């Protein structure tokens, strides 16, 4: 149970707020590379601010606040140059830092332009997405987490969810919801609608654990029928502070990304890399698609895993009223996460880098993540693809075939070995 003030502090992401200042120390994916195939610039909203994201003819990306400093027209309808962007209204030009460098209608011999600097940021591409940093200089390195840079077939589902990003993050340190929402409830939906829900999610939790680590919180669980020797406990998987969760299993590696658009909207992506065996077919760009979470009647679609999650997140309201909550022992991870946010707000206020800031050049950041998920092995990939947001993927059938082919190969090799 939090006070009104504490709940506001943890959920408000705009400029000048403690959480907003913390979140501005990180890079966010905000668009896909293919979004710029037909237009050079797009409007994006991030951390309660409106921005123009643009791509120069040479392929460099830039980000600047959307409203021109002159008469507030949208820079998204501006002219993109190699060295910046020019407002379409009166031609004011800004460089990549947001500094005004030209004012065509003003006299050449005065320094008005030098006194105008818009908010700007830094943009880069990685894994087929455009990432931006809009915090104070110097920008940290863009963290090259394994899922975004490793080989494999990449598949990204996305949607915009009308709720605060924190209630999605708190779900990531709530292991017990899996056996209920994705187990018991999924089974109920299956019985009601006439399909068989995946069994892997129905196992009872025996034990859960949370370790603070250099990238966030490592979450562990022992499920019924397993032991501490199982991957789910021995390795676990991390909540990557402050807006990701890394999951995986059965040769699917996934980063769940929760980009805080503003206090009441979150861009939710499931970035998956499929890499069973050696049969890799690396695309130039990931396959990108929008997944659905409401039906034609406006009801939540709850016959798949992420649809169930979205029901649980959105039905809490745009911002969960934590003055009315009642936490139990199984919510200890939620309390730990709130402490981590407060601790890192404090670091930022003291001028320190918060958790997960990386300033060294690097090739890849490998995150711990179990391989044998829920002890389900071979059945897990198909259960995840069919029962998760990947069911909306345009390459769903190829993915299923790729995974099944791998496991069939393993089975054939084992039979051949046994017969030798």
């Amino acid at each position, binding site marked *: *149970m*939090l*006070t*009104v003030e504490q709940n506001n502090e943890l959920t408000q992401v705009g400029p000048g707020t403690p959480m907003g200042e913390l979140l501005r120390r990180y890079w966010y994916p905000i668009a896909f590379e293919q979004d710029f195939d037909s237009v050079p610039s797009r409007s994006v909203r991030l951390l309660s601010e409106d921005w123009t994201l643009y791509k120069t003819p040479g392929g460099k990306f830039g980000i600047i606040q959307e409203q021109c400093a002159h008469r507030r027209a949208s820079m998204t309808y501006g002219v993109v140059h190699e060295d910046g962007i020019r407002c379409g209204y009166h031609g004011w030009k800004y460089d990549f830092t947001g500094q005004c460098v030209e004012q065509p209608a003003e006299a050449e011999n005065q320094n008005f332009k030098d006194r105008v600097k818009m908010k700007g940021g830094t943009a880069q591409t990685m894994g087929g997405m455009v990432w931006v940093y809009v915090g104070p200089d110097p920008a940290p390195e863009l963290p090259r987490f394994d899922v975004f840079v490793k080989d494999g077939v990449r598949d990204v589902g996305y949607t915009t969810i009308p709720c605060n990003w924190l209630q999605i993050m708190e779900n990531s340190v709530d292991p017990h919801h899996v056996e209920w929402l994705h187990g018991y409830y999924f089974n109920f939906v299956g019985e009601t609608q006439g399909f068989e829900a995946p069994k892997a999610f129905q196992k009872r939790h025996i034990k859960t654990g949370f370790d603070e680590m250099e990238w966030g919180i490592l979450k562990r669980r022992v499920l019924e029928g397993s032991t501490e020797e199982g991957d789910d406990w021995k390795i676990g998987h991390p909540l990557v502070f402050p807006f990701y969760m890394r999951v995986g299993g059965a040769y699917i590696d996934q980063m769940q990304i929760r980009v805080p658009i503003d206090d009441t909207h979150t861009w939710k992506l499931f970035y998956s890399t499929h890499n069973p065996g050696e049969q890799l077919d690396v695309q130039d760009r990931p396959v990108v698609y929008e997944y659905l979470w409401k039906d034609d009647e406006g009801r939540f679609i709850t016959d798949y895993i992420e649809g169930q999650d979205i029901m649980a997140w959105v039905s809490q309201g745009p911002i969960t009223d934590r003055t*009315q909550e009642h*936490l*139990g022992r199984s*919510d200890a991870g939620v309390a*730990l996460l709130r*402490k981590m946010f407060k601790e890192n707000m404090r670091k930022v206020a003291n001028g320190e880098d918060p958790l997960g800031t990386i300033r060294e050049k690097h090739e890849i950041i490998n995150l711990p993540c179990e391989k044998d998920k829920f002890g389900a092995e071979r059945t897990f990939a198909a259960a995840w693809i069919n029962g998760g947001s990947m069911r909306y993927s345009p390459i769903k059938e190829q993915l299923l075939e790729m995974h099944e082919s791998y496991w069939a190969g393993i089975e054939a090799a084992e039979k051949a070995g046994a017969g030798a």
Partner: protein
Amino acid sequence: MPDPSSSPEATGLRVASAADTAAMSGLLPEDPHQLPPPSAWFAPDAERHYLDRPRFCPMCASSIGERGGITTEYWTADTRNFMTWCGECGWFGEVVRFDRVTILEEDH
């Protein structure tokens, strides 16, 4: 030992704020940013939480609320656990309130 001539700010020791003092006396704040409206269904629970949570760090005695810390309460049966982080000294642990001392026997 801290220098008694130093200010509380410099030593890390804290003087109870008006809000902390009022809460110690069982008084609820008038500040609407602290509590839900009285008409809220769980307003009484929020009030108890506000009054019963630890207000000072068990390690350095700084005010949890005033120094950027946080206390999150969760229940285990009748026991109320307050997971507490002190923003001043970084102490992190639980303060537990109970009405009865209960020992759970391990399997034997």
